[in-house]
């Protein structure tokens, strides 16, 4: 089938402002959007710039706006879009550096601010693993899946209106430790998330849940953190 691929272009050392380039491509409906971008870069216009690595939805490099929705370019096929016109744009809410590449530093700074690491320096007496039941392990399974692609945070209206907000991805990663029965840092993390730019900026728009390419129930995870703050209990 033939598709019209409209791509957001901005070359900082040449362009005063952004533009859209259109590429007409004969393609198979089962091609990934990433395959189309690779074709353009390899065979049509080498200056088109975007990030990618694993090409199957596990590394989180190629989150971008595709026909208005935050998606991983490697995890959406041409046929999934039901359209012969495909528009590809950079994520919103982060500064565009070049073409589809945005400045990820603010995103990672928010992530790092919630103590996204295991806190428990005790080692069991037998030197082996901490014990954790399958039920305890299941409690935080969903939020272990995060690949830090930023699709959720950059779909969030609260983040767009004020990028000081830590955003859904950071809260997901706090949740992963807050509800881990082995971890001892929940109080510190919850204190952090109770601050001005913490969880209370979430207005439950559900954009994040819809955007997550790993199907994490992001809004629910945020709600559970809010609930832990209100009740003081980790359940």
């Amino acid at each position: 089938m033939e598709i019209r691929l409209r791509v957001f272009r901005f070359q900082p050392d040449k362009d005063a402002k952004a533009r859209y380039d259109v590429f007409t491509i004969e393609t198979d409906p089962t091609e990934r959007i990433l395959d189309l971008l690779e074709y353009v870069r390899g065979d049509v216009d080498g200056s088109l710039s975007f990030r990618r690595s694993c090409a199957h939805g596990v590394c989180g490099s190629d989150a971008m706006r595709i026909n208005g929705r935050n998606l991983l370019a490697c995890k959406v096929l041409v046929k999934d879009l039901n359209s012969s016109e495909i528009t590809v744009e950079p994520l919103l809410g982060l500064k565009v550096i070049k073409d589809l590449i945005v400045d990820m530093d603010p995103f990672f700074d928010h992530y790092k601010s919630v103590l996204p690491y295991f806190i428990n320096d005790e080692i069991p007496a037998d030197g082996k693993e901490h014990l954790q039941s399958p039920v305890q392990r299941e409690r935080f399974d969903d939020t272990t899946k995060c690949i830090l692609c930023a699709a959720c945070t950059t779909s969030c209206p609260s983040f767009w209106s004020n990028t000081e907000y830590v955003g859904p991805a950071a809260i997901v990663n706090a949740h992963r430790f807050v509800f881990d029965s082995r971890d001892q840092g929940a109080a510190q993390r919850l204190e952090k998330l109770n601050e001005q730019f913490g969880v209370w900026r979430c207005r439950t728009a559900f954009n994040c849940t819809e955007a997550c390419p790993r199907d994490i129930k992001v809004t629910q995870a945020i709600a559970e953190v809010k609930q832990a703050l209100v009740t003081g209990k980790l359940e």
Partner: protein
Amino acid sequence: MTQTHVFDVIIVGGGGAGLMAALNASRTAKTAVLSKLYPTRSHTGAAQGGVGAALGNLEEDHWEWHAFDTVKGSDYLGDQDAIEFMCREAVQSVYDLEHAGLPFSRTPDGRIAQRPFGGHTNNVTKKPVRRAAYAADRTGHMILQTLYQQCIRNGINFYDEFQVLDLLLQDGVTAGVVAVELATGEIHVFHAKAVVFATGGHGRMWDITSNAYAYTGDGVAVTLRRGVPAEDMEFFQFHPTGIYKLGILITEAVRGEGGVLFNDKGERFMERYAPTIKDLASRDVTSRAIYLEVKEGRGIGGKNYVYLDIRPETVNLYAEKDGRKNLDGTPVHVTAEEILSKIPDIADFCKTYLGVDPVKDPMPIQPTAHYAMGGIPTDMFGQVVVNEKNTVLPGLYAAGECACVSVHGANRLGTNSLVDLIVFGKHAGLKAAEYANGANLPTLPGDPADFSRQQIDRLMNGSGKEKAAKIGRELRQVMMDDVGVFRTEEGLASAVEKVKELRERFKEVKVGDTSKVFNTELLNTWELGNLLDLALVTAVAAVERKESRGAHAREDFPKRDDENWLKHSLAWMDGDKVRLSYKPVVITNYAPKERVY
């Protein structure tokens, strides 16, 4: 303007091995990690099924059994002292990961869950043993995330999106690396006492591969250009179960959980190739079996793929036929829900890319280029060794897939890549820091960035008569056709000539993007140059090795030949020529014998 930074230890690569090295080196030495990707994008995150360690959480197991299985899996080309060291250390290393927070799946009594994997056996009964410690089917993701999290906790210095272009040596001693900052195009010199390469594999030279775009062999190519040899490059693993056409990995854990391979006639063909262990034979054996089924016309619909079937009715039928039992002695009987809970990501891939629900329909699969057994030669402490006598190059280390210790020999067992990177990543980091603490900062070579600038200038100012994308396609095709699962003298010789031609044509390539900012065309073109160099080394080493061993299967020399070929290859690049030499395999407790599964 070139910026210069000074560190004790520089780690190149932010995947599992690099982060393990960083965490361990930074305890005593000023350390930084350079990564061409954000570290969490590294390919360690794509590893699925598990990390092998004889914890014995579900049944009797011993690290010595793990060692024997690894030696056998390597087709006796692995160095047995290093294998014993790795399998012994694996147990503590897995506990260390758990203590760092890694969310392993759990047994009913709360311990780390373990599952069977190809080639891992109870050495007495010869039956599969539950040795692969796992976190659903995203074990690599959890390892990468856990290590990165601990790096944040420990304040490790990161230079993200820095591409290393060159290794600096001065008077035979490591002096640092040169890198380009992708966001600005600026060249940076990292002046250091020790350098650890942890840059991953080079599977992107094949058309069908499970590997990330980033897997272009940068570390091996950079060190080759500085006179360091590459070891055992003729051995590259094809994983038997990649998604048809795309090559995306379907973990061996699918077969560990009872999945079965079928040909077009509905035959469980692995019974013929591995009568004892069947679908859980090691990867080289299984990939060859699939290739032969296809060659004899028994691919599905006559095409070049077979089915991997994890539907509950299939699993239960063959579990009964094989007499597989649960630990409490009851017969294995699984539901679709139980299967999906153990391989959620695989189900997601199948639905996304194939429109197939794996508990309702079988998955079309074909062998996919997966893992480099060869790489930068090291000893078991990650120290790079540069000749037949294993002479150490002071200050240079390598770990993970880019290194060749060698623990995988001619064929790596499933789960052992993660074992390799946690064990040798750790020891390379410790050894690098120990060395740095006893060494003076070497002087830098005059104009240290000169060779890096030359490489960039050549790519920016070529004639433009050739297109990099076209050369890349031709490379991937010839490697797939002639340097794949089965090889012949004729095919390999023509592949050598073709790769030589492509390397000549590559000199006429010109990068069109003149931007300094995120010039990804320049980066990708430079990466293609690395693949071309490593492809030449791979094909030359393969044409010379006149036997079949592990992943190197010669149709014209179908038998293993221990008398002449029980040895590691070492390859140097002298300009456009590859020079080969050999060194002995270390044998400790396991005399080579015939390999039967």
